[in-house]
């Protein structure tokens, strides 16, 4: 009967301490009944081979123990919606922090492709580590809440439930026309300014007895202008099509992704290219003296920062669009 003792011991390892000995006692009693019955029925001695046969029939220890346990969740249905909400908030905050850190890191020096990719890689790894760590902590907190929050509190909330308070169903294919109208207006404004008022960011003012000149775009920037114009025009066309049709279709999603990818590619090229700001070093030195280095560095790094933000935002936009298109094709 040593095998039976081992079996009972093994079942006990999978049971909660509270009822363990009682359940073990009951299982032993049942198996002993089965053994006696089987031995009497078949005229066999009650030996190890019979015990093994009966235990095999009774089932694996973990399976037997599981039949005594209720279904257990790490995070159950009552907590799950709050869990996903907290995850979304925390992940968004971490993403914004990572974005700012990346922007700062990339705006430090004139970048080569190698440095650019290295910084992107390092920051991505840091971001993923942060996400994993936050996920683990949130799961831990919710798992503790799942086991400590009284069920009565949840039942009270269930009683207060009102069908009238349900949120309206959102249509993922519906176009936000107001957003698109603003996008078209700003794109047209950008086209006019870049093409007809190339000096627009440059302005001067008098401080004391000195003229201060805020720098404008450099010649390097205007080399990219034809590409900017093409992308802006395509953007306006697709926006107008979307405003007219009112819904996203697979074709418009694909075209939108292509245009956004064009913006990303152009921003990457601009990022590793020469400075986009026309800085008059002598002018700054004559006005600000020692502080001029900081001011020059600020203007020099500003376009990098803006481009990085642009690349990340557009990339997310493209990924969201692809995800929606794939999701749509699955449901159709």
């Amino acid at each position, binding site marked *: 009967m040593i095998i039976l003792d081992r079996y009972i011991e093994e079942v006990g390892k999978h049971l909660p301490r509270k009822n363990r000995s009682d*359940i073990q*006692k*009951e299982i032993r009693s*049942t198996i002993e*009944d089965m053994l006696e*019955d089987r031995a009497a029925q078949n005229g066999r001695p009650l030996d190890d081979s019979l015990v093994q046969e009966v235990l095999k029939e*009774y089932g694996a220890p973990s399976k037997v123990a599981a*039949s*005594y346990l209720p279904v257990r969740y790490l995070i159950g249905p009552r907590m799950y919606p709050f869990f996903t909400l907290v995850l979304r908030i925390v992940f968004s905050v971490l993403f914004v922090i990572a974005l700012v850190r990346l922007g700062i890191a990339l705006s430090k020096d004139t970048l080569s492709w190698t440095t650019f990719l290295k910084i992107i890689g390092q920051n991505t790894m840091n971001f993923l580590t942060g996400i994993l760590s936050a996920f683990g902590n949130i799961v831990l907190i919710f798992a503790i809440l799942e086991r400590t929050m009284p069920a009565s509190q949840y039942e009270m909330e269930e009683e207060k439930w009102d069908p009238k308070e349900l949120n309206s169903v959102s249509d993922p294919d519906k176009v936000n026309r107001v957003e698109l109208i603003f996008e078209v207006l700003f794109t047209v404004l950008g086209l006019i300014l870049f093409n007809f008022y190339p000096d627009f960011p440059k302005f001067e003012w008098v401080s004391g007895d000195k003229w201060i000149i805020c720098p404008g775009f450099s010649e390097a920037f205007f080399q990219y202008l034809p590409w900017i114009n093409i992308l802006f025009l395509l953007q306006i066309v697709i926006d107008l099509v979307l405003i007219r049709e009112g819904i996203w279709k697979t074709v418009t999603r694909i075209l939108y992704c292509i245009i956004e990818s064009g913006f990303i590619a152009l921003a990457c090229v601009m990022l590793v290219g020469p400075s986009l700001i026309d800085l008059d070093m002598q002018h700054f030195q004559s006005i600000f003296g020692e502080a001029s280095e900081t001011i020059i560095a600020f203007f020099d790094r500003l376009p990098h920062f803006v481009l990085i933000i642009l690349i990340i935002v557009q990339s997310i936009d493209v990924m969201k669009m692809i995800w929606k298109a794939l999701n749509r094709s699955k449901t159709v």
Partner: protein
Amino acid sequence: MENNDAVQSILSELRRGVIVIAVLSQLKEEQYGYSLLKRLADQGFEMDQGTLYPLLRRLESQGLLQSIWRIEDDAHPRRYYVISSAGTDALVRLMNEWNQIVGTVQKML
């Protein structure tokens, strides 16, 4: 094959619904687990230990059964189960519901 699995799953759900009635109906007199299992099997209601014993514990925790550990005739200790008064009331209600369901379904079929 898939269809067969689905039918098997529906059949076990159907049986699960009536197991409580079968068990309660056989516990008007004291039974230990294995004797109850055999008694049910003898009447054509086969079920495995993994289903019966947790069910007995659940019904006891719900107050529908009572149990006691006892040693009889030099045998090993056994837990004897018997229906409680709350269990008897519940069984009457369950049987009424069962008869109603059977009547309704038979009319539909």
